[in-house]
């Protein structure tokens, strides 16, 4: 467990850089978290996914997987990979300040 500073505020993060308390997250922090992951600009499409992630987390207690995101967020899996290269569900969760989506076993 360590601390990171986003938008001038100290937040607690885990070993992988995910916020440990989603309540500490504010929209202003997103661009900075994204930049650290190599995403230099957050477009409207990025925000659509980020806001969807927040909403899913708040209603279900966990972020969606990439396949569910592709079915429900209004952004296709293909585009999700363009927006958030490598791992859309993981990356979007991190930028949205929610825990890493619970994986499958």
């Amino acid at each position: 467990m360590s601390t990171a500073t986003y938008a001038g505020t100290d937040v607690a993060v885990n070993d992988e850089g995910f916020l440990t308390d989603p309540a500490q997250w504010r929209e202003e922090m997103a661009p900075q978290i994204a930049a650290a992951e190599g995403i230099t600009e957050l477009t409207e499409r990025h925000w659509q996914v980020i806001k969807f992630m927040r909403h899913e987390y708040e209603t279900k207690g966990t972020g969606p997987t990439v396949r569910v995101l592709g079915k429900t967020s209004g952004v296709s899996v293909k585009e999700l990979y363009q927006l958030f290269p490598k791992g859309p569900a993981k990356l979007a969760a991190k930028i949205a300040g929610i825990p890493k989506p619970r994986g499958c076993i």
Partner: protein
Amino acid sequence: MKRIVVLGGGTGGTLMANRLRRLLDRDAAEITVIDSGDAHLYQPGLLFVPFARARPESLTRPRCRQLRPGVTFRRATVERVDLDADQVLLADGASVGYDVLVIATGARLVPEETEGLTGPGWQDRVFTFYTLDGAVALRRALSEFVGGRLAVAVMDMPVKCPVAPLEFCFLADSYFRDRGIRDRVDLVYVTPLDGAFTKPVCNRELSGLLKDKSVSLVTEFNTGEVDGEGGRLVSYDGREVPFDLAVVIPLHAGQDYVSRSPGLGDELGFVPADQQTLQSKAKPNVFVIGDAADVPTSKAGSVAHFEGQIAARNITRYLAGEPLDASFDGHTNCFIESGSGKALLIDFNYDTEPLTGHFPARIGLPLLRQSRLCHLGKLAFGWLYWHVLLPGREIPGVHSQMPAAGKRQPAPSPVAPARSSR
């Protein structure tokens, strides 16, 4: 007279109906199992079909014959469930009312959801062994395979029996060795996970086994397209794995009727349930068992078996108006065939990852270590399945709660655990 309706006559539905029939007097409850077909397939046997080590016709038996006297089997297709009216609506227009509904309709394969998978090359150089037809077609293709690259690829989680694709690799290694052409076959395992398995100790053992058998490992590969004609798997992030023969595990989803039943399922058609009581989140008189459930454990027959005892007790408590008191711990137990007449055993639950040691106690089958004994255990399981699991009985010495005795606790590791999602 209470009415219990069980949707699905597979592993979970059959053992549930049989357990409930034993627990409830015939004049207290009637039990009906609804399924669209009458062929009960022993799914663990599919793995052996491509290697000509199981006869396809030996894997199916009539569903109705696995049910106890006093359980009604009704062959029908479910259109949807009306949660408000406590009714199951059938495709032929009939409706069936219930006091308790058990959802046990498993998972279905949706290969058409992956671009190109069912296009040119499907069942020709691209196969799956997750269906009986597919396993039989693959048997022929393997017997004609004389060399080249064989890719075994998992499209995405969740899949039934997550260790089966790894077992396929191990058995393929043995198979080609036996045929004397192993040096001409390049085996590659392609997974969306970041390791061979999700949990650290097991991941280490299974990755080591892949290496020992010269199976290369491609991780974090989310297949976006299968190009059967060109012989390529293409990931969403633009990477490619070429193949001469591909064995894929298609995407899985719940049944269609779940999606047609408002409020019942999630986006993929699985039914969210309380992971401890197995009561659905949709309505208190609906319970879920086996692969159909959205609970954080493996989709495996052993899970359905362990869940059976818990769900049966909770259903009888529910019918009696008493609070639910049985709690499922996520117990899963799998034999992993590792080739050359050996197998490993893993045993875990929601909180405890698969560990080394012995099962079910300090003296018992070795865990996470290849042995002849575990291979014999896997073969014996076929008999247990038909004669102990499906009738809804307990396996002597094996309980629904995971045993902790005999397991070696791992030393705290500074290394971050294997990630399990993307």
